[in-house]
């Protein structure tokens, strides 16, 4: 009788499904019949999804503010691996008046907390219809298809937090599904962790298929999934053995589900926080290998996190960036995978000691966000003393060192504020000049190369110019002598002297002779110097012989002619 009642209640629950998500506990209520009539008592079913450990207090059930008597029907286990069960209770209400009525929210105490359903609207019809007699087959068989969505884990959740979402499909026959819309499994906006999981079990004649998926929140916001539904048909075989449609267009629907993802508060966020979320987590670090080791040796740390609540959202602290680790230890490149043992999460982290100066495994800071208090909490592990020695050069030395370590007791340095003696020689009392680069001690001195080349080229041109300039000056001298000769009288000895000087100077200016102190007899016989030599010798002979048959103008003309010819060569 109980079973019959149970299944008849399930039959009409297709259209009335109001799950309320609050943690792991979900409540829903349905009325047995779609059509209710005046004078007819109302019966319904009320189911609670909860942890097996949490007790549903049936005495605490209230319909609105009044006590409601419910009768336990049975428990249905969802999954052998899951602690969740669905408890079914039936209830009955007195006949109601015709028209639209509201079934107030039903509340119940599950564990230590009280949960409520949503109020439910239903119709009560005035005239009582004559229900036609049902055929035998309809009496014994009715198609049943129900879809229910669920969330395992607390919502709202924070970025990086993981939850499991999915659907439960209740059915009593083989359905050919024409349309499947299950957006929670797609989980758009979330990261899917692993593949979807499908479990199926049968309770008497009802089969329950559970499809769920683990997802991780990636960004903040309200994510709406649904409404979700499936549409199917039932086929049978006729007397000829051919496929025959029995029920068509059977639809099961569940309302839309909203998952809210929040961002972690910025205020009070510790530097070590890397996205761990949980409640009342204790943290412990243990060294799993020897505490005496050489530089480069591997050591293993075990980080253990314990909590009564969910520990799946705990992340391993970033050890490489914790104070005391950089430069002293090198953490393995491969990130360790945490082992979840009921309420304990264990990470085994491998690392290598890098320096003899590492005297302890530093205190590790672990911080997490507690959604209950909405605050960050920080846990610190204790320092673990270790001895890191330099790597021995050869095997014998290594053995010796091992023996020494075995025989000697480790003496820990005393912690003291007293200073140690200075081991090194003191600083140089430097001054401002010690801060300067040495004069001509930088790359800039390479500038001397183009400077030297330029200086040499310049000097070469200067020398050339000097020679030319001197020649020009000398040229001016011969003209000067000739000018002076023009002023003098032919009878005066100065006339001959200047004439002589003008011609010999002009030869020197032209570079024909080296010195202007040449006498006419010393001049070369060739070319223009020979002609001048002859001219001056002739002039001298004439002058000293007393003949003096020449004309003054003629002599000056002749001398000018010589000068012009010589200067033309310059």
């Amino acid at each position, binding site marked *: 009788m109980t079973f019959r009642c149970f299944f008849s209640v399930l039959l009409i629950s297709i259209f009335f499904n109001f799950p309320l998500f609050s943690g792991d506990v979900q409540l829903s209520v349905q009325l047995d019949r779609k059509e209710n009539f005046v004078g007819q008592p109302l019966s319904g079913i009320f189911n609670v999804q909860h942890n097996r450990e949490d007790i549903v207090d049936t005495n605490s059930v209230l319909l609105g503010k009044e006590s409601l008597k419910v009768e336990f029907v049975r428990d249905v286990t969802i999954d052998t691996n899951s602690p969740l069960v669905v408890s079914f209770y039936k209830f009955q209400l007195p006949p109601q008046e015709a028209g639209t009525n509201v079934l107030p929210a039903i509340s119940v105490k599950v564990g230590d907390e009280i949960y409520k359903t949503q109020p439910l609207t239903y119709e009560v019809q005035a005239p009582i219809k004559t229900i036609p007699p049902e055929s035998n087959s309809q009496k014994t068989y009715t198609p049943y298809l129900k879809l229910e969505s669920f969330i395992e884990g607390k919502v709202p959740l924070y970025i990086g937090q993981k939850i499991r979402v999915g659907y439960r499909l209740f059915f009593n026959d083989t359905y050919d599904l024409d349309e499947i819309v299950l957006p929670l499994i797609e989980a758009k906006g979330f990261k899917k962790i692993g593949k979807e999981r499908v479990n199926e079990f049968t309770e008497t004649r009802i089969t329950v298929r559970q499809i769920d998926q683990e997802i991780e929140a990636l960004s903040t916001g309200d994510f709406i999934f649904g409404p979700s539904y499936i549409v199917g048909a039932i086929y049978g075989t006729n007397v000829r053995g051919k496929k025959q449609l029995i029920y068509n267009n059977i639809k099961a629907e569940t309302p839309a589900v909203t998952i809210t993802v929040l961002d972690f508060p910025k205020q009070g966020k510790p530097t070590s926080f890397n996205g761990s979320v949980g409640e009342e987590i204790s943290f412990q670090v243990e060294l799993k290998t020897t505490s005496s080791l050489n530089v480069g040796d591997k050591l293993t740390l075990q980080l253990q996190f314990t909590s009564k609540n969910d520990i799946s959202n705990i992340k391993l602290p970033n050890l490489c960036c914790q104070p005391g680790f950089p*430069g002293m230890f090198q953490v393995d490149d491969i990130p360790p995978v945490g082992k979840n043992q009921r309420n304990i999460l264990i990470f085994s982290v491998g690392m290598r000691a890098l320096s003899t100066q590492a005297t302890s495994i530093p205190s590790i800071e672990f911080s997490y966000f507690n959604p209950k208090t909405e605050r960050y909490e920080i846990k610190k592990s204790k320092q673990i003393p270790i001895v890191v020695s330099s790597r021995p050069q050869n095997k014998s030395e290594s053995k010796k060192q091992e023996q020494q370590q075995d025989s000697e007791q480790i003496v820990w340095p005393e912690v003291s504020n007293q200073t140690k003696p200075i081991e090194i020689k003191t600083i140089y009392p430097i001054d401002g000049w010690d801060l300067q680069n*040495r004069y001509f001690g930088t790359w800039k001195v390479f500038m001397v190369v183009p400077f*030297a080349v330029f200086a*040499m080229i310049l000097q070469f041109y200067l020398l050339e110019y000097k020679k030319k300039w001197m020649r020009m000056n000398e040229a001016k001298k011969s003209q000067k002598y000739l000018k002076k000769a023009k002023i003098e009288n032919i009878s005066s000895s100065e006339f001959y002297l200047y004439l002589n000087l003008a011609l010999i100077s002009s030869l020197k200016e032209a570079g024909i002779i080296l010195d202007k102190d040449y006498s006419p007899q010393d001049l070369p016989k060739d070319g223009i110097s020979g002609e001048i030599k002859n001219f001056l010798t002739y002039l001298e002979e004439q002058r000293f012989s007393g003949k003096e048959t020449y004309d003054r103008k003629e002599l000056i003309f002749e001398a000018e002619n010589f000068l012009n010819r010589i200067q033309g060569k310059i």
Partner: protein
Amino acid sequence: MKDLLEIRKILINSLLVLGFFCAILITIFFYFFYQSSSNDVKEANNSYKEGESSTTVSIRKAAFNHALELYLELENHFQPEFGNGKLYFNIANTYFQLEEYPLAILYYYRASALSPYDKTIQDNLSIALSKVHVQNKAEKTPFKTIFFFHNLLPLPIRFQIFFIFSLVALIMFSMWFWGFNKKLKLGALFFLSISIIMFFSLLYSYFLENPSAIIIKPTSLYRGAGTQFAKVSDIPVEAGSKVTVLQVDEDGEWLKIEENNTIGFVQSNSIKII
């Protein structure tokens, strides 16, 4: 002609006045520059001395940290890469006192490169190396023996020798050119040859010589420029080790180094070039 002489006279007088003012300005500039820098230097020196004489660890640390801060500011401002190395020595000492031995070793090597015959630097360097259990490797090769001047003379000294010898050679060549004395040519050639040797020594240092570097934090040697490559050895290169830099990648993130005849790549944040 008279006009030309007068112009020349005015020009010479103007140049003399300008030179005089320039000399005054340069003197004033150097005076204030010296004063401002010497105040910081004095403060840093005093802070270091205070650290040495302090009786508690906390006061000592605070004093050495203050001295280090000032010394590093001075280094950043003056960049005495071609100086006498005294500032580097003081920075190294301060790092040593703060137990930052790899950085102390780096600065001792920098000081030693500028003053290779300074015994104080060598002594302190040995102590710092012993702290990190690293040996001071001084290898002798025929190349180094032949070109002793290249390795024994610090870079700024080689620059100075090059400059002075080039200048003397230029002066002597010039004098010979203007006909002072014919023997000057021989002297000029001698000075020129020395300066040419120094010139090539300097070019070798700049273009061909692989720079040395110090590992400032223990690091693994990778087979390629990236952590995705395998490690050359499980044993990391110890901090304070002196290595040779063979190559720097384009973005300067990874350096190819040689350490104890092993070649590998290290990240730039774990190494500093001397």
